């Protein structure tokens, strides 16, 4: 019986952690809409959640006034424009109604090769 309780607690903790991470990723994706990182050739304006194919939190630091996320992203606006792997620094600041993004910095960008045989145009 004890073993069962332990297993249940571990399982619930795992589910809770996973759920929290998923919520965090979804929130980050949603908050990014309307933000722009980089410039000129290497510029990405987040226009819809659909463009963010993957988002992984690599690091998170901060205090009660500021939170900084380092995230790995996989981005694609439309197949003709290509798919890109990016790393970004997202800085949140405390606002009246919670947290809001202050700025997004592009740390690295790379075009990901499409599968063999694919053409862009």
């Amino acid at each position, binding site marked *: 019986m004890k073993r069962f309780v332990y297993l249940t607690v571990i399982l619930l903790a795992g589910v809770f952690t996973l759920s929290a991470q998923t919520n965090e990723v979804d929130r980050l994706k949603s908050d990014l809409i309307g933000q722009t990182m980089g410039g*000129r050739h*290497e*510029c990405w*304006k987040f226009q819809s959640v659909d463009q963010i194919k993957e988002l992984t939190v690599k690091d998170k630091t901060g205090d009660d006034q500021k939170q900084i996320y380092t995230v790995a992203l996989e981005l694609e606006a*439309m197949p003709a424009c290509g798919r890109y792997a990016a790393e970004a620094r997202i800085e949140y600041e405390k606002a009246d109604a919670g947290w809001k993004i202050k700025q997004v910095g592009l740390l690295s960008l790379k075009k990901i090769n499409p599968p063999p045989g694919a053409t862009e145009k």
Partner: protein
Amino acid sequence: MKTDQIFVALGVGLLLCGCEPQKQQIQLGDPLPGLTPEQLAQFKAGKRAFQRAFTPQDGLGPLFNEVSCQECHEDPVLGGVGDEIEIHATKFSPSGLCDPLFHEGGPVFQTQATPLLQAHGITNEPVPPDAAGIGRRTPSPLFGFGLVDAIPDAAILANQNTNAAYGIHGHANRTIDGRVGRFGHKANTATLFDFNVGAYHDEMGITSAREPVENTLNGTPVPPDTVLGPQPNISLEEISNATVFIQFLAPPPSQIFTNYQDRTLAKRGQNLFTSLQCAGCHVPEMKTGPSAVPALNYKLVALYSDLLVHDLGTNLADICLGEAHPSEFRTAPLMGLRFHVDGLLHDASATNVQEAIERHGGEAQKSADEFKALNDDNKKALLKFLDSI
């Protein structure tokens, strides 16, 4: 009222009209007409940001092309062109795929290094061996670019349909995030501010919150002991100030010929410009959309470009960028062409307007051939027209 009284009244009216002080003609480098005093103050503040020369201690480099915006945009006045040539390179595969070589430091490869970086034996960023195309790029004149920034995407896309009527096939280029591009020789940047954030970074090695990482050496970070200045080097507000200066720069004034012969010649040239179908790509006018700035709100811009990319033939081809293939370039805006003093075409390889026209290939081959076939008088007329816009 008797007939003679009507004539007197009309005469007085005409005299009054004639006596009205004439509006002062805008000079190259002036701000847009109709700016508020507050906007004029922003224009002046922006001008100072545009002129700021960076030092390594401010954050210049370690890899860079020039030390200020002004350096590349100074002839014949601030906001114009420069004689600098920079190096762009990308990789284009026969299947139609374009790799901008971001991971190898591309597509802009810096030609200078700060003394600290030189001490490491690095004087520039070399073009990586797997780059398939190298492009020489010249700075564009910036006059009227605020108006270009305010043209709706829909108007650019609509030009694709107008093109079809001329039997040509220009298309809008797209940024990597799918937006309609308009700035740059390959039209691969969507907004003036986006362009400037990147220009500070790529041209001067000046980092900002949006691009906080220094230019790499073909993808390898520069030695940490070569990085100086505050991090990031400047605020987005400073870039915004410089952007406002460009945004409020008036388009170049057209030349009004006082001599009847010149006027007639230019008018004939204008007709030839249309009949040779130059106007198919070099669309004489576009209109801005709604803007919070009245001076940019629903204004006509005598741009002489459709802001689309067109195939100019294999002789001019160099790099791909976005959806633009190596031979495709944005239709160069011709407004203020007579002030473009440091070489024409995207790589400054044409020494004069006639040479630039004659070297058009691809979709423009027919127009270029017809221009070459004109007699000297008609060539002169067309060039006179181009000298007036």
